């Protein structure tokens, strides 16, 4: 992540929409998205996937009647850069965000320090599977999939009959292939992951109530991640009402 570039873009957004406001994102090595928002001497934990367009679109189809009777969420996340805890942190939050229900219980099987296969039950009965792997070889692009299966309709961020994310542009030259996926005109030039951190920071500045909500969610998510990974050690599912009581 290039924090300097991200802050330049954040300032551009602030000058354009909220002149006079100042805030910065800072790199953060604790579990989460890798950055926090700093303003007025306080830090706000960011949940950038909650403003990431593909997830807000998926959320919209779960809420606007496009999908009816959601049964199961099928999530997968594989990365060469992001560690297992960070992957699981995001996917567990997405379970609640897209599943519209709190986590009820979970059981994980874990291989080494980088792979977890997790089954989750939500409080309203939905199931979720989370395939997490931080074991992709170096320089491999991140791979993920988020599918929501309902009595009426299936929604996904992956194309039917494909296995890997699609790009907007494919450039084929004798030097090799390059792909480009540009998704934000105002933040043009930032990497995909950077875009959503800046957008999340901007969302908190525009809607300050998010700060307390996300900080509270972050605290709970950290405990949930620990609890889920611990199930592989103890060989029993965790019931979150007991852990978080």
């Amino acid at each position, binding site marked *: 992540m290039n924090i300097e570039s991200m802050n330049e873009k954040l300032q551009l957004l602030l000058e354009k929409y909220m002149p006079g406001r100042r805030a910065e994102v800072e790199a953060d090595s604790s579990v989460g998205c890798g950055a926090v928002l700093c303003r007025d001497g306080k830090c706000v934990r960011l949940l950038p996937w909650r403003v990431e367009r593909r997830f807000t679109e998926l959320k919209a189809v779960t809420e606007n009647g496009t999908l009816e009777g959601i*049964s199961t969420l099928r999530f997968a996340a594989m990365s060469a850069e992001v560690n297992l805890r960070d992957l699981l942190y995001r996917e567990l939050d997405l379970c609640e965000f897209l599943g519209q229900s709190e986590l009820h219980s979970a059981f994980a*099987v874990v291989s080494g320090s980088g*792979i977890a296969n997790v*089954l989750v039950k939500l409080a309203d009965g939905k199931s979720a*599977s989370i395939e997490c792997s931080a074991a992709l070889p170096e320089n491999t692009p991140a791979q993920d999939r988020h599918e929501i299966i309902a009595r009426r309709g299936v929604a996904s961020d992956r194309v039917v*009959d494909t296995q*890997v994310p699609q790009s907007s542009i494919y450039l084929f030259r004798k030097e090799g292939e390059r792909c480009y996926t540009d998704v934000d005109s105002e933040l043009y030039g930032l990497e995909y992951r950077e875009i959503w951190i800046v957008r999340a920071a901007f969302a908190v500045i525009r809607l300050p109530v998010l700060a307390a909500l996300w900080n509270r969610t972050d605290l709970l998510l950290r405990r949930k991640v620990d609890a889920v990974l611990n199930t592989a050690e103890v*060989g029993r*599912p965790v019931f979150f009402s007991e852990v978080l009581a």
Partner: protein
Amino acid sequence: MKPVKIAMVSLTHGHTRKYYQTLRDNEKLDWVASCAADRCAKEVYDLYHTGVPCYLSIEEMFEKHPDIEAVVLASTNDRHLEEMRECARRGVHILSMKIPTFDLCEYDEMIRLVDEAGIVCQIELELHYNPVVHRLKELIASGTVGRILSMQATNITLSPVWAFPWQGVPEASYGRRVPLREGDARFRGGALCDHPHIFDLIRHLTGSEFESVYSVVAPNLRPELEVEDMILCNGTMKNGVTFLFDPSWSRMEERLTVPAPGWEVFPKRMQVDVTIIGEEGTIVCDCFGPNVYHNGAPNDRYTVQYTYFDEWIGLVDEFVNCIRNGGTPEINLKWHRKTIECMNACYESIRTGLPVKVEETGSSEE
């Protein structure tokens, strides 16, 4: 090699259409007779105009065609033992559907019958003969990704229950009426029973057996079914490989009583996607892709038209070879028992809400 004179029994299984084509087209087979489970199954069979005589009694079929060497048991799971007894008595080789039985006492009787009769009994797990799976096995065996750490796989399809209602009847599918768990109105016998393939595949790919499994069910996509249609499993193999499987009926279908084009509502009616994570790399593969696509008749709906689909060639090759040359199919009753044990353990996990050790119970040698 002399073609094997073969018959098909019951005609109520989800793969009957594929067998009509295979038995007619494969030069290693001479399709001489069929036997329908009932008049309704015979009426559907007649729609296909195979030209092969169809009876309503297995005894009558065998009497009229004493030259039958082998049968495809395309029947409900609860009839397999009775039909295997008949085949074993007559020394007729068996191509069994994917679930011989979930009852391990029955299962062991099947093993004994086949052993004593000296017949071939091959379990129909067509994924075993899929070229993508062949490549996957080769890549793993050659060490491309190093030691396997984890496997994730889907075996997700539409539900065949509207065309093959027995797959939604607990007694016919699971063998008896067993509630999924206390407080749940559903019974064992749904999507899991339709999808043993990935449970078999992991054993081949890892060379290991199941250690433990955990399983959960979700609200049914088809609330009127008595059996589960959305189910997930994770677990561990004895060599430490972890897995996560989705064997659900998560692709919706038109409720056709006879399978036909336009059956699928979701564009891709069947998906077997496998991810293998090794110490030195990751493989993601789609066993049934890529394909061609259309949005034409009958529903003008975007549809994946399966394009490379030749599993039944290898399946028949092995079956005929074992009959003619006296071999044992790789997926035989004894091998397949451990797959069935794990599937039973999945149901047990749903009942208890806990991970379950997959232990060998009542082995045929005992």
